[in-house]
């Protein structure tokens, strides 16, 4: 396995309402690894993931992904799929329509790919029920599907197993190993140290606005 760095976060700081959530944080991510970040509620895991995804602008520091530094010109990383704690779904639409609307913006995805990725996460593309009727686990699966849709090289998944039952968690672990075998790099966050110990190549703990390797 080659150890090529694809993501570098350097001296990241972010303060919300006088609370310093991230403090001079440095982080590197190597290609084709599964890396996890764990931490307590409010420790800043999700904010850090959002900084990496370009959704939150850091007060200081820089993020470079696949050789491109995020700035005014390149606000969001390319070749990166993201999934956050809220699944990012329109509840009155069907699963397929949700992905269709996002695919329209991406402008690179075919109908067949949408159906394929919905099946990949164990859902049915022709299901006419609105997402409102889905269980939390089904919504999580669909959220992961939208992250996979563009076949990105890097996946950033924020607490992807929340709401999944035991079978669903096993399915997820198999899925990310399969994705790793396909050459993808995966960064996930979780509450549970036990869970990440099962499948991660590296793990970090977020505390005091900084990351510590565990």
């Amino acid at each position, binding site marked *: 396995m080659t150890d090529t760095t694809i993501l570098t976060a350097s001296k990241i700081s972010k303060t919300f309402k006088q609370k310093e959530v991230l403090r001079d944080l440095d982080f590197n991510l190597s290609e084709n690894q599964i890396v996890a970040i764990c931490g307590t509620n409010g420790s800043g895991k999700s904010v850090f993931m959002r900084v990496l995804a370009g959704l939150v602008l850091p007060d200081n520091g820089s993020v470079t992904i696949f050789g491109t530094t995020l700035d005014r010109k390149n606000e969001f990383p390319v070749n990166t799929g993201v999934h956050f704690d809220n699944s990012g779904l329109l509840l*009155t639409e069907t699963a397929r329509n949700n992905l269709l609307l996002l695919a329209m*913006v991406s402008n690179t995805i075919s109908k067949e790919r949408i159906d394929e990725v919905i099946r990949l996460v164990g859902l049915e593309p022709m299901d006419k029920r609105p997402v409102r009727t889905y269980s939390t686990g089904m919504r999580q699966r669909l959220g992961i599907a939208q992250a996979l849709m563009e076949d990105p090289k890097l996946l950033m998944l924020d607490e992807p197993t929340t709401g999944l039952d035991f079978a669903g968690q096993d399915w997820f672990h198999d899925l990310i190993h399969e994705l790793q075998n396909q050459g993808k790099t995966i960064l996930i966050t979780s509450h549970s140290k036990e869970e990440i110990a099962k499948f991660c190549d590296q793990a970090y703990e977020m505390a005091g606005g900084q990351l510590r390797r565990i």
Partner: protein
Amino acid sequence: MMIKPTANFSNTFISELKRATRSRGFIIALLLGMLLLGLGLNYASHYPEEKSFVDQWYLAYNHSFYFQMLPLIACFPFADSLSSDRKQGYLERLAVRQTFKKVMSAKFIANAFAGALAAILPLLLLYAFTTLTNQNPINHPALNTVDGRPYEMQELVHLFQNSPDLFILLVAGVVFFIGALFATLGMASTLLVNHRFVALSLPFLLASLLQYFANRAKLIPWYLAPSEVLLTPNFSPSHAFETTNEMPRLFILPASLLLISLAIIVLFGKRQQVLENSLLPQKKSAHPLDLTKLIPARLQNFPIKESRLQRGSKWGNYFRTQLNIHIRPVQIIVIVVMMAVLSGVMLGWMKLQLPQVFTAEAGNAPPNTWDLYFRTIGDPWAMALVTANLFLFMVSNLQPQTAFGQLSIKRLGARWRSWLAHLGFLLLAAIAYGLLIFIVIHLTGRLLGLPFSTQWSVMRLSFEHINLVGYLVDPPNHALVFATVFGMSTLGFFSMSLLVLLINTLTQRRLIGYFIVEILLISSLPLASIFLNLPPFFQYVPIIRNLVMRFYPFVLRNLDQTYTSIYTWLIWLIVLLPLTWLAYRKQDYLSHPDAD
């Protein structure tokens, strides 16, 4: 182990009262009240110099539109505290030291007292000021004007003429009492929707609606208008209050407000409901009335075109997704129904005011659908409370971005592109909304018996009844008038929606922008009158002046002021466009729940 409550009621009440009267909201309310009365006093200075202190006081009271702003003044000090205390967990700290009933009683009584105090203090200051500075004798005939003195309630007239100090204290006392009721309603309403802006805006919106329907549209009894209960002189020619035995009816509105507040407190203010909610603020309420479940699926979304996949530009497709997400069939149905009802009401009103033009005397130029259009779109109250209100509410959900919106923007690649798409969306929505209501009003008029016509009707001679000005109906050209009226309102809708967008982006809350702009819009109704004697620039500051052609006391608009409102909106845009751009560029997309 349960902690035994140790504090007594009076301690809790005094502590809450101190919080209320030392709050920023209390100071704001006092300043707002004094500012309004100051403007009213300025207005009163244009009345004859012989006016006595009581004339001066009563004129300032009436022309400050205190009756309309009272709900805001009363709710500012403390009405939102129940909501913020629940969210911050302070209520729980109180509830372990005192029985829950006593905590709630202390909060509600302190709030009522603080609201009432904020309402009455500026009036008492005005009383002191006019008494000390005005030594004129009372009852000078020069002030026998309809809007200068009470004239319909004999008891009031008697009191005004014989015991002016008592008259002032009576009116101030009524303001004190009604202020307490509005403050109570504001606080109680947060038991229904736990949001501080509901406390500030709901009583104000309710009072404005009651004022409109009772005093202007006359669709509900006159005694439900806050202005009647607050003892202002009545401007209405068809007012029915002539005999003293109708006086008890003035207690109906206060009693209703009290009963509504009590009902909300009893039904929704139980310990379990209030404290559990505060412990679990993120928990989705199992509300029995889930509208999304009542609306058929086909009315919830327009179909999505699969053919757009892998075609066109990213921005163009993003723009289309915004249309798909934010414009829904059910919204269009709501607009059509509400505008049809509003046009029906306006037509009924036209027939009531000018029955002769709807008879055979109108000859070959009977009222037509254009008349109804100009009447409806040009009515300031209908504009503030229904037409513009509906539009602002419908477009208020662009910001903050939902989780889905954030994923879309990431795929779009730049925040400024999202800003541009939202601008385009709001402009298109404003134009489409203007055209839709144009069509709905014409069709409603046709259904109700008015003909379509390209000619001016007999209403041209009574142009004030179709909310137009004289020079606009002089050349027989509907297109020019339509372009002017449509341009004013459409630019106004667009500009106001940009302000909503800006506030929502900065606060990261959806309804705040809508509430603030709607309050500004409704407040502009009295402000327009208050600003009557200010220089022309200030006269066009109140929003409503730039949405409609005619508005009391601006019954005329000079020829050189035809396009002043359009220039005003352009100034709004020059300010708001860069501000919204900056707000978008610096925006952090934080976690928001999935949205329907």
